[in-house]
């Protein structure tokens, strides 16, 4: 669980008008979001470029 202080910094950066209760709700679920961010950030080859959807010619 992220500390309240650390989460407050992130919340402040969003600029959203969060109440204390709303902050607590988001802080409780933040570890799940963090795990997803870590999951997509596992190493990829340097040349793996961002892509949109697919190459339509591939059938």
């Amino acid at each position, binding site marked *: 669980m992220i500390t309240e202080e650390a989460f407050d910094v992130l919340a402040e950066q*969003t600029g959203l008008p969060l109440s204390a209760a709303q902050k607590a*709700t988001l802080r409780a*679920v933040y570890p799940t979001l963090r795990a*997803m961010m870590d999951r*997509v950030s596992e190493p990829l080859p340097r040349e793996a470029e961002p892509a949109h959807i*697919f190459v339509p010619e591939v*059938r």
Partner: protein
Amino acid sequence: MSAIPTIAEAARLIADKKLSPVELTQDCLGRIAKNNSSLNAFLLLTEERALADAKASEARHMAGTARGLLDGIPVAHKDIYNTAGIRTTAHSKLLEDNVPTKDAVTVTKLAEAGTAMLGKLSTHEFAMGGPSFDLPWPPARNPWNPAHFTAGSSSGTGAAIAAGFILGGTGSDTGGSIRGPAALCGIAGIKPTYGLCSRTGVLPLSFTMDHTGPMAWTVEDCALLLQAMAGHDPSDPGSANRPVPDFSADLSKGAKGLRIGVVRHFFETDHPVSPATKKGIDDALDVFKQLGAEIREVTLSPMADYHAAGSIILTSEAYAVHEPWLKTRFNDYGELFRDRIALGGFITAAALFQAIRRRRILTLEVTAAMEDLDILVSASQPGEAPKIDEVPKWGNLEKPSLTMPFNLTGFPAMSVCTGFGVGGLPVCMQLIAKPFAEPTLFRAGHAYETATAWRQQRPAMAG
């Protein structure tokens, strides 16, 4: 008439002058009058418009100038589709007085096909985040048991079709919002290939994940509706510029020779489904085998990989869409949508770009897996509809979504009913095809539906 026809049946009866479009629309309006207060499927009923459309259709049929198989068919639109002069709210307080001046492109196309427009349908707020009980209108409920959830976000469309309020309707699908309610309401719904149907005039949620598409009682009816909806739209930057095939052309070809891959780990280990859902899929595979299809097992990356990339992209894009209102009208949103979208403000730019990079890898993976396959099979929902007041707030994050992989990759996918489970509630499977291979998807779905009896059973309230 008493039985609710499919679109294909109604079209034949209308063409043979055995059914009047006005009579058909009145039947639908009668069912709405009787049952909408239990289901909340319609946010706005446009009865006068519907009857005017139906009368105009009848006149065309009598004059021999009918516009095709959809002429006179009662439909309605998810309330994120703009309708000129008709309130379009996204089921949100933020847009409760919003009256667009132009129809969405797909709304125009369905009107030009001669459909009778009955009104606007419930959605989860801005197509994400339900069921919510703190919005100006209540959430849609499931016609098979109104104490239960419809899934969403095209919740009103799913409920209205199952209840016989309309014969077809529009949905949108960013993470499963067509396939989810189609599954839990026991109907058919297709998320077409990304870019096949215009999104212009449909309120955006996530630019690269949004898909518009049809929902109906049968696969065949979805093909008929998609025929009217699909096609290049220069005003939609994601629109594919390619010819529209005949989506019904392969319906009669059956399943013989189809090469079907089963992504079993998606629904057995990555997100285990209910016993009835699993049995429905296994039985469907037996049906396909008996019809002459070849069945193989397919292994992809863990579904959590698809879910993580899809969720990060979706939430980031939705946050970008809504950020101005989030900063100025935060508490005018319902709690579920507001809190889910607010998470987008906590996603780093690096994580978003890693998700977009990973999207390419995962898309290539599915492309490779399907190289010598025509169809993939998975589950579309984890089980029967839960009670509407027992849906967890963060259910969208707790387990990987069964539908998200094909929003992320853009492949066409549809829900098809495979029977009934606990409490008599519907269960379903998900069929997936290659990009722009919707005719093959419809072929497989139609072959299954016509080989089984599930389409004969309607919710009790539909009479």
